[in-house]
């Protein structure tokens, strides 16, 4: 079986034979970037379709089913419509920031994809602080949202942006702490190392109850970080019409929409990498025959299966729960999740020191 590392090696070799080393690096950057963007855009298209079908089925509807077979072309039709629409900017907005905000938000969410390991040997940049990098970069996105809300010169947008700022800044903490629990156990920030440490079982199973708890906290905080219901206060349509992107239209709105889904992908990818073993198949320590069977399932199937499972959870929450109020949202974070996460990290540290984990 040809691994992904063979393919990347072959591309590298054939480029090196034709170009000077500097150009090889540059063209590899461009190729990798295009590849990641393409994969992510395809993922987003699938997710939007999935979201609409999930919502439809949960709401006793059929979901999109007119455009193309089973409505699969609906997303493309929507994107096409958004592309053709005029990106209208009201008179009183701060033009520069108004136009910059969607680009910034989108760029930041793409940046967070750099250290993700997609499959064995398929990783753009295995830096030694990968997880730290992702958490750091993904919190820049809130600046874009604040920028959008402030520059729109709309009170709804401003309120939405402020809510979003408060929310993301708060929930970053418990999301970070729940990742720290795993990092403490495996002892590395590098994405590759974290995945390899789960070769004999995923952390969610190896790490006793504290890691399971951390996973639940992570899913809650992750849902909050991407501003999805029940934490969608930033765009709460029954309160603030559309929140921070009230004034955006056309593809500028499309970019915010795209960002929401890419952020979901990022959250799901980190979740699956840290807790569910990334592309690592389901292994149980000692059961070699079983592990061998599991290895036959390709690694990228494992990875995307886990991603879509987490994404389905998020969608399921969205179409079931009512929204929280802003003070309840902050209370949940600061009074419950954060203290519990800190206690959890202490317990994890204790377990790690005593070497009680597998």
């Amino acid at each position: 079986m040809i691994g992904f590392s063979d393919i990347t090696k072959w591309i590298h070799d054939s480029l090196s034979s034709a170009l000077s080393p500097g150009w090889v690096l540059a063209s590899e950057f461009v190729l990798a970037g295009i590849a990641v963007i393409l994969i992510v855009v395809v993922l987003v298209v699938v997710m939007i379709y999935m979201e609409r079908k999930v919502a439809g089925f949960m709401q006793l509807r059929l979901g999109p089913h007119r455009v193309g077979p089973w409505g699969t072309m609906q997303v493309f039709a929507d994107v096409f419509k958004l592309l053709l629409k005029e990106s209208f900017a009201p008179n009183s907005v701060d033009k520069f920031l108004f136009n910059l905000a969607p680009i910034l938000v989108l760029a930041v969410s793409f940046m967070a994809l750099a250290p993700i390991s997609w499959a064995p040997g398929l990783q753009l940049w295995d830096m030694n602080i990968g997880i730290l990098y992702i958490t750091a970069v993904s919190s820049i996105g809130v600046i874009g949202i604040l920028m959008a809300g402030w520059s729109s010169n709309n009170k709804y947008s401003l309120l939405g942006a402020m809510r979003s700022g408060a929310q993301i800044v708060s929930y970053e903490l418990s999301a970070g702490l729940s990742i720290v629990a795993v990092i403490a156990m495996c002892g590395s920030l590098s994405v590759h190392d974290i995945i390899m440490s789960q070769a004999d079982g995923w952390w969610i199973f190896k790490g006793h109850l504290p890691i399971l708890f951390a996973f639940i906290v992570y899913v809650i905080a992750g849902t909050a970080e991407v501003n999805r219901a029940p934490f969608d206060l930033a765009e709460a349509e029954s309160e603030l019409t559309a929140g921070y992107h009230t004034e955006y239209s056309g593809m500028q709105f499309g970019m915010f929409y795209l960002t929401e889904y890419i952020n979901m992908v990022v959250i799901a990818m980190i979740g699956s990498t840290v807790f569910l073993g990334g592309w690592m198949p389901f292994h149980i320590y000692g059961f070699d025959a079983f592990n061998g069977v599991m290895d036959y399932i390709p690694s990228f199937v494992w990875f995307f299966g886990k991603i879509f499972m987490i994404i389905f959870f998020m969608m399921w929450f969205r179409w079931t729960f009512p929204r929280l109020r802003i003070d309840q949202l902050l209370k949940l974070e600061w009074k419950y999740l954060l203290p519990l996460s800190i206690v959890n990290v202490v317990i994890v540290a204790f377990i790690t020191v005593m070497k009680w984990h597998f």
Partner: protein
Amino acid sequence: MENNNNIPIDDLTEEFVVNIGPQHPSTHGVLRLQATLDGETIKDLLPVLGYIHRGIEKMTESLGYKQSIYLTSRMDYLSAHINNQACSLAIEKGMQIEVPERAKAIRIIMAELQRLTSHELWWGSCAMDLGAVTPFFLAFRDRERILDIFEGNTGNRLTMNYITPGGVMFDVLPNFASSIKELLVKVKEHLKEYEELITGNVIFQHRLKGVGILPRELAISMGCTGPVARASGISCDVRKYHPYDGYDKLDFKEIVIDGCDSWARYKVRMEEMKQSIHIIEQLIHNIPEGEFRAKVKGVIKLPVGEYYQRVETARGELGVYIVSDGGNKPYRMKFRAASFSNLGALKPITVGAKIGDLMASMATIDLVIPDIDR
């Protein structure tokens, strides 16, 4: 900012006015609320009305009595049958028309079905205002079935114009009783689902409990009626105290809860749905045979005088006040709309609360804007 005046920093925050509406997802129509906000907290609230003011009261003065009835379905369009019933009852009162028993039974069944549809829609939109979208579709499933029954029997789905002076427009279809029996079985099942999905939900309860507190005295002073008043411990069901169309012969409970908050208003409506089903079940097994409509003169003229008829719509007490000068047109017709009085309670219960609470209070007060503006 330079703080020269030794004002505490807290007092330097700037209030700003947000116009919630006239086009806003949670005002359910064209209501505009001028909210003065301090951050997320509401400091003042001023309802601005008139975006759907059609002058129904003026129109009735130039139309006849019969033509006025069809206008009433356009006021509180979720209680169209009940509005028609109120207007018909007022006219019957003036003309001393005796309504046949069969017509009375049909009227009550229709009115209670209408109350059911209205509460179902309220349940869905209440959950949607609080951010859950799925309940809206679950609620519309039953509402759709009831509207199908309306459509089959009356010819229209929303503004039926079915109840007229003297009875009802046409007799019900032969399968009326059986289709309603079938429907009620489903509605009862689905009411349990509603409890599972939303009523028990801890987020939902936290959004409503202790929010929008309307004390009993304030509710009385504000002239609140219907579920809003009954959730504040006021016993004011018109069907009990001023029975019409034979409600006095039926067995049903008036739901009064002393909670005073949005959660109590929610509970009152949920229980009222069960009571409506109970009322329909008493009638549906034996609708009296006979005429469905008493003979009424072609041109309706009320004797000189003033007539006031009240009924219990899904939102509270609807009063029809007719001043007649003996002619074939009403001299003055005033509709005392339930939503209009209930709207007054919105400001005192939301000032000091958060924007999210405003939506919760507005959702549980259940305003219908054309009813406010008329």
